[in-house]
């Protein structure tokens, strides 16, 4: 017994990364354990009922799980945990959702007592139809998603054998001239396709759009793509035209500006969730065609109404894409149960090591506030403190200093407060993009940035997501949405496209010392730190002495 794995009694698994057998152990536990943290030396996985059931759904049995734990563990594995694993996994599949030739969607019991228990549960009220015989109950097709969710909550997850509708066929192929799917993209697309539905987690800049395109090619059917905003919609369109046999005419945009329904339609979350007089007028888009595949981009941002709508779409294949499946509202589980389980996940540092995303150095620059500002801060109302600390005047000088250091590189300054950003844009003589900037103007500025005509951009949170700026190599964050871990990761993601010359990307966050700004920064950095990005901390007045 000298494995790389340590099994804790609280159901976490510690994987020592530097151990020679670490990779083998990782492969063995990946199907059933959730990666929770991946800092430098020891990665933490967690065993959850959902994870174990997903493993069951993927055809793993308890014996495999137990033997994977025993084989790779350095110390004896708690007996109670092994018993519990077997017990949890045995709960999966006692109920099945099947497509009955006569009655349509049917909940079938392999274990009759479980069916009786479920029928009496409050959670399933109204989801189940008539009892067909001792072992079968009809299910309203529209309740498929909600029923599955309810069954998971009851601890009796159903094995969904009802399959998916094929949708309207529409041939799509990848055009691989001068590029090929990367191994992890291939694995992610395959993992998704074999599972039928699910979520793929890849770092920003690792080519999630390509995974989407590959999935569309596998489906060969009409596809609905849901994205966060219009800029992202156009990026998707351009990428699809470039990477697949799809022509611009086959791709429609369904946004505030345009309402096109084509074989491949890209819609924004915003337009779908627009509510007029208590109804969602654009919801019919979901039924406008017989979609064979629905792609959810940035699935961590999925708004609540879309959750509800997704529950109705359980017969269609669903692919969720994200870099950061952390939701500050804690609804990760709902994403998994409605879109589908996690089908592919890789630590960011792994992809970086393979050279598919730019290596990044994260630096926290700590600024000591002058006494006057400290006093103002100390006496301010609690709700104003973050704003005061985050937009401290001293930050401007630090930003200028950093900009000077990276004079030759494409650089983004990202912040939260408009007055602070305006001031910075002024100082740096750089264009400013905020929510008030028109889509056309944004597009123009981003294009100019990509082309290298504009070297510096000051952006608000509109550029947090889905803005593809391949040549950006430096980002300076001056303020953010309080302690949002996901925002921090997405902002780092803006500079992680691999650079032509393999340059290292630099991510700076400027923080006021001994204030809530510093506390929030620590919280924001948690996700990235857990992904293995160790922040270097530098004092603002030492900045000159610090090597790049």
């Amino acid at each position, binding site marked *: 017994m000298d494995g790389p794995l340590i*099994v804790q009694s609280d159901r976490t698994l510690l994987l020592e990364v530097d151990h020679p057998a670490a990779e083998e152990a990782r492969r063995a536990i990946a199907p059933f354990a959730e990666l929770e943290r991946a800092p430098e030396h020891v990665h933490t996985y967690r065993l959850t009922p959902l994870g174990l059931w997903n493993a069951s759904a993927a055809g793993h049995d308890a014996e495999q799980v137990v033997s994977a734990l025993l084989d790779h563990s350095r110390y*004896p594995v708690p007996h109670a945990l092994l018993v519990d694993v077997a017990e949890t996994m045995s709960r999966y599949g006692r109920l099945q959702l099947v497509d009955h030739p006569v009655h349509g969607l049917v909940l079938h019991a392999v274990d009759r007592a479980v069916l009786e228990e479920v029928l009496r549960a409050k959670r399933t009220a109204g989801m189940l139809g008539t009892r067909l015989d001792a072992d079968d109950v009809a299910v309203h097709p529209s309740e498929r998603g909600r029923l599955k969710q309810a069954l998971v909550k009851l601890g009796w997850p159903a094995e969904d054998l009802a399959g998916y509708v094929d949708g309207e066929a529409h041939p799509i192929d990848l055009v691989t001239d001068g590029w090929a799917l990367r191994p992890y993209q291939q694995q992610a697309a395959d993992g998704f396709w074999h599972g039928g539905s699910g979520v793929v987690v890849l770092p920003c800049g690792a080519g999630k759009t390509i995974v989407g395109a590959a999935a569309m090619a596998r489906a060969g059917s009409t596809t609905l793509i849901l994205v966060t905003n219009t800029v992202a919609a156009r990026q998707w369109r351009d990428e699809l035209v470039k990477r697949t046999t799809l022509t611009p005419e086959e791709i429609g945009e369904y946004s505030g500006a345009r309402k096109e329904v084509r074989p491949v339609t890209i819609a924004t979350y915003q337009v779908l969730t627009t509510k007029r007089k208590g109804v969602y007028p654009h919801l019919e888009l979901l039924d406008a065609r017989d979609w064979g595949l629905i792609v959810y981009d940035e699935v961590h941002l999925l708004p609540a109404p879309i959750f509800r709508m997704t529950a109705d779409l359980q017969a269609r294949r669903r692919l969720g894409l994200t870099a950061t499946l952390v939701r500050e509202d804690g609804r990760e589980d709902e994403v998994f149960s409605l879109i589908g389980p996690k089908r592919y996940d890789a630590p960011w540092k792994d992809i970086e090591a393979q050279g598919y995303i730019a290596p990044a150095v994260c630096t926290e620059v700590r600024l000591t506030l002058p006494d006057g500002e400290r006093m103002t801060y100390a006496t301010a109302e609690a709700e104003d403190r973050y704003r005061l600390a985050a937009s401290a005047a001293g930050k401007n000088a630090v930003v200028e200093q950093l900009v000077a250091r990276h004079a030759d590189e494409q650089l983004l300054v990202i912040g939260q407060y408009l007055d602070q950003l305006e001031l910075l844009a002024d100082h740096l003589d750089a264009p400013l993009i905020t929510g008030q900037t028109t889509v056309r103007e944004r597009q123009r500025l981003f294009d100019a940035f990509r082309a290298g005509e504009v070297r510096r951009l000051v952006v608000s949170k509109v550029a947090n997501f889905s803005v593809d700026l391949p040549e950006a190599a430096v980002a300076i964050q001056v303020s953010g949405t309080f302690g949002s871990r996901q925002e921090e990761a997405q902002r780092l993601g803006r500079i992680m496209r691999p650079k032509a010359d393999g340059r290292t990307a630099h991510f700076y966050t400027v923080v006021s010392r001994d204030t809530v700004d510093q506390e929030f920064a620590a919280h924001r950095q948690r996700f990235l730190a857990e992904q293995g990005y160790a922040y270097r901390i530098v004092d603002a007045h030492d900045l000159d002495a610090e090597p790049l």
Partner: protein
Amino acid sequence: MATFTEHLRAMGAEGVAEVLHRRRDLAAPPPASARALAARASTRPSLDRALARVDAGVLATIEAVLVLPGPVTGDAVSQALGGRADAWLDTARDWALVWDDEAGLHAAPGLAELLGPHPAGLGPSLAETLARRSPEALAELAAELGCATDALAARLGEPETVSGLLDRAPAGARAVLEALAPGPPVGRTPGPGSPGTGAVGWLLRHGLLAVGDPQHVVLPREVALALRGGRLRPQPPEPPAAEATPIDPRVVAGEVTGHALEAVRLVGTLVEMWGAEPAPVLRSGGLGARELKRVAGALEVTVAEAAVVVEVAGAARLVTDDGEATPSFCPTTIADEWAQDDAARRWVELARAWLTAERAPWLVGTRDEAGALRGALDPAHRRPWVPRLRAAVLGVLAGADGRVDAEQVHAVLQWRAPRSAPTEHAVRAVLAEAALLGLTGAGALGEPARALLAGWADPDAAEPTPGGVTPEAAERAAAALDAALPAPVDEVLLGGDLTGVVPGRPTEALAALLADTAQVESRGAGLTVRFTEASVRTALDTRSGEEILAELAAHARSGVPQPLAYLVTDAARRHGQVRVGAAGAYLRGEPAALAALAGEPALRGLGLRTLAPGVLVTSAPPAALVGALRAAGLAAVIEDADGTVVHTERPRNRVRLRHRPPAAPDPELTRRRLLRVATDLLGVGTQADARDGAADRETDRDGTDGTPEPSETLAVLRAAVATGSEVWLEVATPGGPSRRRVKPLRVDAGRVRVLDAERAAELTVAVHRIADARPVEAPATTEREAWTDH
């Protein structure tokens, strides 16, 4: 026919010694004679004790000896039980519960009462039930069965007769008998007009049922036996097969070490917690429910587990009631010594304390008979039987090769001693505690615990006397645990996300360092901690930031990551930004004037210090400061919190006393109390006492060759009941002693039911009124002769 006394005498010194070895209660104080021994051996408490320790097979055998028609042979017993009973019979003889002579096997006197009223679920014999019927009825029945009246009992007891009669019986009769046959043999007499009346009437007429009392009928013994096919029970008694599920010893060892270390840690944490802040003792003496909940919260365990931890710490005398005026539970100096030991020895201390503790932690939180909550560590809740229970439960595990579940353990204990078997709940609780403390792992006994048990109860002792574990066994147990423990790890892997992982069991030094500087995130085979500013801050009370970093670096294989170094340095920088000190009074005024004062020789004794320009402090009280300043010629005044000048008064020292209301005697209450005392004193006892006194005097006067020892009186009576013989009974009555020739029927609960043949009446006599009882054939003389023979 011999008597029990003669049987004992015939056993010889060695035989009797064997009996005394098994039944220690017979030996202390040493009985004066064989008769006294026989008498003591037939008392209820002694028999109860003996029966409590024999297994179900022996009990069934004794029942068979009691109920089978004499003469009882070993073969008859085996047949009635449906399996060979020789071994059980031997055991029963060894315990002096069964004895034999030329007339067959006999149960020891007194057992019939103890195992009654219906041993083996059987009623009275036909001889007894038929005796209650009129001669006419008997003659009629004898004629119907074609036999003589005095052969009626024998004939009715034959299975053929019973089945022959039942073939002719009205509908429902067979069902009535079959319902009563498995026992208990008593049924309700159907009321007039109800469906069973006819059948029951017919059965009563034919002697297959007998009248028990006006409301009940009873099934005679022989009839029941015939219906049971001659067997006492449908299945022969058989020990339950405790099937152990084989389990990998490594799994057991893993579980045992994990739990043992955790138990040591939990107790250690409790000691530290109470060392910092002792827990108050309830007025009733225990630990309050809320306090226990607090412990559970701090230890991150359930309340039930916390109760075990607290009780074990108490049993090991690591914590105790400090006995102060406001008492609290506080660690002892033994705890300090304990903390110095290595983990294995610390565990051994806890395990042996638990094994021998007369405490039942699983009852903590339940309510007693009075409805009060049972608190942990409550000295009132001592339970001397608990160590025996633990020995029995773990003994079953020790004999099994693998895991045994609670149900099976309970079944085995139920077989081994049915009359003193613990409840399944208690067995479960003991097993849960053993698992929590690491004596068992995955349901099987661990090696360290096995070593401990080997040195605990003397397996040959008649009664496992739990007096503690031998030092050699403790040493072996510690060695066994040490061997199973994984090697401690002296390094921590520190991550950039401010977490640290110890890939294994941390060494004492590393564990202490991490306990001081970080929060634990997860435990198990390894240890995960998170460093936060708050966690570092506590450590800064005892060392500097640099020291913390140096200590961490000494243990960190991969170095201290920069964010952690910053965290510690930042916390250290902020540590002590605001400072607190004590002062008795301050002095404020013109900075220049005060600066001069600080150097004034006359004021040196006050220890004035400059805190800030214009502020001096001293530890002296304000009045003393004012006095000193005035003496030095400075007109100082005292000010209050707002700066208003306060006029000083002369000091007036007083001792604070609280007013207590005078204890006014409540005349009503006093009168009532006196009355109650008087009633208790006079009421119940008086007359009886007077009578008893008279009886005693009577006995003293002429009772020298009677049976002065009540237990011997009872023995004589029991022997008479067993043999159906008559005795001379001398009873103290208010009118003086009266002597009667009677036939004892039952001895029970301090009373004897006797049949006075002369007056044809049954009467009940209280045992304490019996002055003398001796067999009619005057066995006393025989005995004397027998003694002279020797």
